[in-house]
């Protein structure tokens, strides 16, 4: 079996001491930021990107990937113990997880989240390994028109799944696309919107935007809230082991969450957050068994399913990135940046030109998941201590790491001035209820879309119908249109609003 040969190659790469170490560092950092409310994987990956310059590309990507899926584990700890989502994808875990902690069942809640995540992570990795080869073959059939349509689908997906106003999410995508065009146009060499500032001819760094909007913007908004809104509550955790009854309820929920998460992760625009929401909704719809605790009062299924779903999704969202070179969400957009820094052009050719990187990364995810279950269950005490560190010590450190990270990307203070601007802009976004994640996705896709649009229209001599006359491209656009229609249906849009208000 080719798959096994590939996986063997991957494990050979991932099991070298250096890569094991970086996988561990990534998982540790991921858990850390997952546990800490107010800082997510986006800002952390952006912060650490510069630090990976000196590393070999495989190690760098292994570490960054570890941060992403590690954060999905850590986020549940905070959700259960503090009644706050440590990470956006744990928003729904809070509902039942914290109720379980109040009833003195914090241990089983944490175990359900950890075991569910571990199972889902393993399945997600297998799905990724199995789907990578066939999807890559499809990807080679893609011309510029297909790529353009695929990106449209990805952006529509991001809009549909964004929380809050649809129109504003579309606006944020436009804004991101436009910001992405700043800098030298590859085709004509014209420096667009650079105002004769030499640094701007290279474009705005995506680290600057990610850090300003997600790092500084969030900190300012957090500090603007009163201390009482940042509730801190440390529970005693004793007896991690769930009961037999718990397991009986948990196992089907984990299975449902995993399959749902794996599918939603592949879809462009999907990702961990939406997977968790959808999984919780499904669990809530299934009938309660006799003697089961109702949802919202500490039902273990309400913890296990969304946690499994977000972890499965975080693994499978690597599929579009690794096979098509198209990031399905904002974190994957950062991974595109990380790959380009190391001179790897994301896309179907990665698997053939860098097989050790491709399979090494996949194998490392399985190892990472095994590390995470150890980090998060037996060592839970450490993270509980960490939750008692006051925010007033944390935020200056976060500001410092952002500033250092931004400066070291180009060793240029210009980026520090830019991040200040985007910090203010990011805070404004939060105040105006404009969700910044679609902006970052648009920002990364902007230049790619322009290039593919240009090529497609050049080949068709300016005929726009090329996007609907080519079968593959037409079907991608049809899916995008269908998604939009479904969301705009009055019944669905009402449900969607309800789902997000529950936050």
């Amino acid at each position: 079996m080719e798959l096994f040969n590939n996986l063997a190659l991957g494990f050979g790469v991932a099991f070298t001491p250096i890569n094991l170490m970086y996988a561990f560092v990534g998982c540790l950092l991921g858990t850390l930021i997952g546990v800490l409310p107010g800082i997510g994987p986006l800002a952390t990956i952006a912060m650490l990107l510069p630090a990976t310059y000196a590393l070999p590309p495989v190690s760098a990507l292994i570490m960054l990937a570890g941060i992403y899926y590690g954060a999905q584990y850590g986020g549940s700890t905070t959700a259960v113990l503090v009644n706050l989502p440590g990470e956006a994808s744990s928003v729904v875990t809070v509902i039942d997880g914290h109720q379980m902690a109040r009833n003195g069942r914090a241990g089983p809640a944490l175990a359900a989240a950890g075991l569910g995540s571990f199972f889902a992570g393993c399945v997600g990795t297998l799905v990724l390994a199995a789907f990578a080869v066939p999807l890559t073959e499809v990807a080679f059939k893609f011309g510029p028109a297909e790529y353009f349509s695929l990106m449209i689908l990805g952006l529509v997906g991001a809009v549909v799944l964004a929380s809050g106003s649809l129109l504003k999410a579309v606006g944020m995508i436009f804004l991101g696309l436009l910001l992405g065009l700043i800098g030298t146009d590859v085709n004509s060499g014209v420096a667009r919107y650079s105002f004769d500032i030499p640094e701007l001819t290279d474009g705005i760094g995506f680290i600057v935007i990610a850090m300003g909007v997600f790092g500084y913007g969030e900190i300012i908004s957090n500090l603007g809230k009163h201390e009482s809104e940042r509730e801190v509550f440390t529970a005693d955790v004793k007896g991690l082991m769930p009961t037999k009854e718990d397991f009986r309820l948990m196992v089907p929920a984990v299975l449902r969450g995993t399959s749902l998460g794996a599918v939603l992760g592949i879809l462009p625009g999907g990702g961990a957050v939406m997977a968790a929401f959808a999984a919780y909704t499904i669990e809530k719809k299934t009938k309660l068994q006799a003697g089961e605790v109702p949802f919202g009062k500490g039902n273990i299924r309400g913890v296990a399913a969304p946690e499994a779903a977000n972890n499965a999704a975080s693994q499978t969202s690597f599929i579009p990135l690794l096979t098509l070179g198209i990031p399905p969400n904002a974190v994957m957009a950062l991974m595109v940046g990380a790959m380009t820094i190391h001179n790897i052009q994301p896309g179907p050719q990665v698997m053939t030109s860098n097989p050790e990187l491709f399979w090494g990364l996949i194998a490392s995810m399985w190892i990472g998941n095994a590390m995470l279950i150890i980090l998060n269950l037996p060592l839970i005490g450490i993270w509980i201590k960490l939750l008692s560190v006051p925010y007033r010590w944390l935020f200056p450190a976060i500001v410092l790491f952002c500033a250092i990270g931004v400066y070291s990307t180009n060793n240029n203070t210009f980026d520090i001035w830019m991040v200040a601007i985007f910090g203010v802009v990011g805070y404004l976004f939060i105040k105006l209820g404009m969700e910044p994640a679609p902006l970052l996705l648009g920002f990364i896709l902007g230049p790619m879309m322009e290039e593919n649009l240009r090529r497609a229209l050049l080949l068709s001599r300016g005929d726009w119908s090329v996007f609907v006359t080519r079968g593959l491209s037409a079907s991608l656009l049809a899916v995008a249109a269908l998604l939009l229609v479904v969301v705009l249906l009055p019944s669905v849009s009402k449900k969607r609003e309800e789902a997000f208000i529950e936050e």
Partner: protein
Amino acid sequence: MAIKSQKDFFSGLLFTAVGVAFAWGATNYSVGTGARMGPGYFPLILGICMALLGSVITFKSLVVEPADGAGDKIGSFAWKPLFYIIAANLVFGLSIGGLPSIKLPAMGLIFGIFALTFIASKAGEEFKFKEVAILAVILSLMSYAAFILLLKLQFPVWPAFLTA
């Protein structure tokens, strides 16, 4: 006419303004045709779309009652954290790079960390001098070990006039 949703009203205006600015800027570059797109083509289309979208959002904010009925107020701005966080970042930049135009020398990373920690801490609700000083020392040691010794990032560590 009363504004039904403040948040949407102003975000709509923002989209329109930025869209118009980008579209107007795009006309300075050659636009070209579909088959031969110039550098202005794509930004012009995007800018126009965004400006239109912005006006729709603004219009809706005047007409449609927001779902939660709370009026969607923007609320007060957290000026204090905004000021101190951004200031901390700017002072850090000045410490690393200096400002040649007014002959301000680069003070280096360690000075920058102390300045950043003290200014940023002002953004919080409590400010205890001793605690912040300890935090600054810890952060300096950690950063020196991690970024300079371990990762070998290129930073001016000490003030320029001491090392020159």
